[in-house]
């Protein structure tokens, strides 16, 4: 494969670019592995990479029903941040942000990580107080945050509607180390780095059932035959309930559709990521120039990967009230991804009642930013059978025990989170 470097780029450029090869091996399934990871999205790929790179596992396979980068890792809005309030989340996301900062060096891959900052606006005194409290908590966890009042915001964000009659902008909580990354490159970079370390990345291989005998998993049934495994890790996002259903398990999860949108390419105008404290509108500008934005879930169970028009209208209205200048930008595309919404809005990384079967899911609409951290802690769980220090709260049985991690205080209402 060879390392990527500026020198190699120059050499290939001068010699007709004939030395480039596919970034990962398109492996065929072997009869048996020590560990199988199901799901070739960001989390599955990061897990497979960490199993090989950090935990020395050599017989690892990653099964993907479609192609690498075809699921939510290629459908999200590419935002990376670590501004959570609850202790069970903070340590995890702070770790994940640190891993983002060194991902390009770890993977030897340009993921276009851009720490352009994430700004959460507030519109009332109460929201300002809550933002400052959150900022203090985030700083204690090891991530960063700074509160800016409206006067300070106007320097970098002059185009916001500060004097909006209904939602005037009082200030905002900025996380300077947060930002965006090229989502496809994250998938490709992890696939290449995992493949280089001996992981078999097997595409077009859909899991159709589990080989479970006496409460223990011995392998998986797939569209490419039976594959034996000592341990099986599941990281399949919106399909978590379906797959765990094949193992006879019910999940505290509903699958919902979240839409996202992009405009035509425009000259640079939005310096970072900004979120409106009203209606959950958020927007950033891609390096290509398109305004990338989105809002709330459509609000009903869905596996359709597309939403309906009322939410399109709602998101567009929220965007124009936040920054009237985008009213004449033309929407180029919209799409939907399927979110595995848990009953408290926080993820699950845990063993299951089936021995040897492990779950990494329930990332709701926040999976992308968690990718490197999720891979590390899930690999830790798979390799050592003990939860990683920063993921101890993400237990599957926390709901029945009453130890929910309800960041937004919504209660068990996935469609409203």
């Amino acid at each position, binding site marked *: 494969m060879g390392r990527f470097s500026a020198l190699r780029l120059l050499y290939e450029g001068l010699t007709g670019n004939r030395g480039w090869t596919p970034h990962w091996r398109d492996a065929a399934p072997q009869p048996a592995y020590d560990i199988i990871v199901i799901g070739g999205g960001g989390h599955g790929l990061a897990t497979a990479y960490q199993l090989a790179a950090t935990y020395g596992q050599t017989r690892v396979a990653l099964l993907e029903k479609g192609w690498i980068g075809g699921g939510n890792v290629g459908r999200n809005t590419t935002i990376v941040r670590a501004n959570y309030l609850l202790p069970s989340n903070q340590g995890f996301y702070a770790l994940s942000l640190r891993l983002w900062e060194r991902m390009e060096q770890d993977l030897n891959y340009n993921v276009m990580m851009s720490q352009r900052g994430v700004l959460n606006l507030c519109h009332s005194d109460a929201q300002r107080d809550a933002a400052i409290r959150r900022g203090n908590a985030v700083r204690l966890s090891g991530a960063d945050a700074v509160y800016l009042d409206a006067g300070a915001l106007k320097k970098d964000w002059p185009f916001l509607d500060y004097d909006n009659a209904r939602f005037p902008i009082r200030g905002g909580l900025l996380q300077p180390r947060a930002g965006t990354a090229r989502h496809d490159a994250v998938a490709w970079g992890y696939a290449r780095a995992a493949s280089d370390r001996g992981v078999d990345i097997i595409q077009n291989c859909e899991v159709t059932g589990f080989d479970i005998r006496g409460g223990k998993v011995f392998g998986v049934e797939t569209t490419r035959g039976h594959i034996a495994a000592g341990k099986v890790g599941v990281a399949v996002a919106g399909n978590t309930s379906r797959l765990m259903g094949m193992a006879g398990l019910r999940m*505290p*999860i509903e699958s919902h559709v979240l839409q996202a949108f992009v405009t035509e390419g425009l000259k640079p105008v939005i310096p970072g990521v900004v979120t409106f404290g009203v209606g959950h509108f958020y927007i950033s500008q891609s390096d290509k120039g398109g305004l990338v934005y989105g809002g709330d879930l459509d609000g009903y*169970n869905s596996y*359709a990967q597309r939403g*309906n028009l009322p939410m399109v209208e709602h998101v567009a209205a929220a965007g124009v009230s936040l920054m009237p200048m985008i009213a004449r930008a033309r929407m180029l595309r919209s799409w939907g991804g399927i979110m595995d919404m848990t009953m408290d809005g926080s993820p699950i990384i845990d063993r299951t009642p089936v021995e040897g079967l492990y779950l990494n899911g329930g990332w709701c609409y926040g999976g992308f930013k968690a990718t490197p951290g999720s891979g590390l802690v899930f690999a830790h769980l798979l390799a050592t059978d003990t939860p990683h220090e920063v993921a101890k709260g993400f237990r599957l049985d926390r709901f029945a025990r009453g130890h929910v991690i309800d960041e937004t205080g919504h209660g068990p209402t996935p469609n409203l989170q």
Partner: protein
Amino acid sequence: MIIYHPLLGPRDSDEFTYLGDASLIDRPDGLAEDAAARFAEYVYMRDNPAGTHRELWFHAAGDQSWLVVTRNTATHEITHVELASDVARARRAGR
């Protein structure tokens, strides 16, 4: 999506608020021996099928009725709509 309300005819889904799986009609007996376990199951666990799903919708911007809508979660196609009160009554009669 258009929801065919049994009393009001075709209505835009935007007039409704969604609650979730229609099995939420069957609230467990709070005095049962195993009430805590049953409520944990009732409040938190879902079948979450990809395909036919019976679910509760509330006509918030309309006549304030609860409906049981049978909808395909893979295609968003709605095949059947009933008043939730009728469904609940039929369930009680069937016991």
